[in-house]
């Protein structure tokens, strides 16, 4: 299910511009959406989920215009949405909560609902906790309940907003793997500020900054932005003055710094292989210089 976004803007009351003329084309499969906090990712996710109305622009999902009531309804019938701040009714059991959401999604047949909920509890490994009240669930378990509710109507589009925030590493990997498995012939739009989540799951990625698209392409292309700009500097003195320090590891008597910089940040700097995180940081470093240029020229 293809998402085509054109000239999308969202201005909140008070004049806050969350999105400013966003153009984006998302094909079927897993798609990463990166950006710092406040970049406009959640606003975009909420518009795609039909919760927010855009101020201007068009959004077509699988051919339906989501800015019209009929189009929004059509999209919501094929949509699974996992919001950033997932909430549940604490006194309901996982099974009851899913049953409620399934009813709201139009799964009227009780046997069908039961079967589907049973299958999904299996998928998210919560079968043995199905009849426990949600108030006793850990953050990771709640996220899995969130994934299950998003999948109830077998959606063609899955919109997932910051799904791994606050999870321990084991839960994070488990959820990431689950989302990758679910992609298949679906469109899964994964919004996150954790670069590693995109690196481990997606082939394509877009980057937002201050409500604008600043990159759209393959993960490798974003990584390549840091080509010949990543350096290792080992020193017992002060950290390199130029470039952006990605990491600092104790190394013998000194510290080994990983630095993204256009030029060697120190005379003895060694070039290193870039990662997606380096590419993202290189892009973000360039943004102030490239303000006013088109996204094509940046990408």
């Amino acid at each position, binding site marked *: 299910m293809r998402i085509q976004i054109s000239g999308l803007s969202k201005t909140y009351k008070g004049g806050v511009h969350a999105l400013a003329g966003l153009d984006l084309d998302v094909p079927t499969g897993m798609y990463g959406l990166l950006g710092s906090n406040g970049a406009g990712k959640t606003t975009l996710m909420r518009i795609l989920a039909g919760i927010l109305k855009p101020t201007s622009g068009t959004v077509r999902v699988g051919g339906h215009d989501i800015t019209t009531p009929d189009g929004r309804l059509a999209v*919501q019938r094929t*949509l699974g*949405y996992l*919001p950033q701040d*997932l*909430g549940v009714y604490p006194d309901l059991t996982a099974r009851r909560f899913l049953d409620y959401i399934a*009813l*709201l999604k139009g799964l009227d047949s009780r046997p069908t609902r039961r079967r589907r909920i049973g299958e999904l509890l299996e998928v998210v490994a919560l079968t043995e906790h199905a009849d426990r009240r949600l108030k006793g669930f850990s953050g990771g378990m709640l996220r899995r309940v969130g994934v299950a*509710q998003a999948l109830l109507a077998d959606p063609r589009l899955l919109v997932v907003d910051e799904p791994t925030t606050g999870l321990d590493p084991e839960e994070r990997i488990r959820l990431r793997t689950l989302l990758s498995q679910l992609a298949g012939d679906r469109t899964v739009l994964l919004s996150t500020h954790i670069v590693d989540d995109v690196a481990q799951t997606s082939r394509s990625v877009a980057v937002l900054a201050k409500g604008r698209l600043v990159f759209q392409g393959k993960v490798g292309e974003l990584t390549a932005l840091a080509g010949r700009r990543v350096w290792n500097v080992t020193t017992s003195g002060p950290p390199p003055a130029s470039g952006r320090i990605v990491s600092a590891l104790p190394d013998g008597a000194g510290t080994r710094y990983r630095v993204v910089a256009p030029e060697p940040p120190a005379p003895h700097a060694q070039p290193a292989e870039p990662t997606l995180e380096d590419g993202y940081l290189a892009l973000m470093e360039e943004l102030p210089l490239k303000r006013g240029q088109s996204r094509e020229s940046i990408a």
Partner: protein
Amino acid sequence: MIAALCYEFRMQVRRPVLWVVYGLTLAALIATFGESYTMLDLGRGGGHDPKAAMVTSATITMTLLPIVYGCMLADRLVRDRRLGVAAILDATPSGRTGRLIGKYLGTCAATATPFAVAYFGRAVVWVIMEGRPAALGWSALMFLLGIVPGLLFLGALSVAGPLLMPPLLFRVLFAGYWVWGNLIPATMMPTLSHTVFAADSDYVPYGLLRLRMPDGMSTTGPWPGASLNLLRPVATPSVALLWIGLMVALAAAVLSLARLHTALTES
């Protein structure tokens, strides 16, 4: 709408605090009214007449229990946002208006359940003591026609009110409104008490059910010396129907405003 109705009913009716608060308030009510509650006679006679006794029971029940009803409903609509469930619900293809109506009806029905248990429980006890089962019919009529319309309006007010202010403040104001607008004598100060806009009204028993108390007095109609008597017509069947219609219309208007408010704030 049906899904929201069923689940909101289930979630609300299972709250232990709902039953505890109702229970404590009912105990306070019984302690306050004492023999009047036991005899179902407020000093006007009629304690042995099924219709009069059931109306008296309704009058006593409607003094304090509506405050509990309103206060227990006050967090129902805003809690979806507080719990963070609203985003999931709003992303479903279920209509927001239908969901609001379902939530309203479900939570109101659940919150009225202990109320109904208290009222019908008293009716059953009266029937056992007096041996006149006709009271059950009168109690059902009185509940459906004389109490439910008022509860529908109060429910809408309590579900929607906390959209504009914190639930705690709403509860305080609601209790104040209940005393001012429904309980105090019409002569004390300008008040909605005993008008067709009062949720606790005697228009149905005196107008529609043709109740005549042994003392011959009625609490409906103009009060000598009171202001706003224009809103206190003499009880007739048509005025009773007007009161029912007003309560339902007010409930619908309040819910429409709530829907409009959420539509404006969410965009």
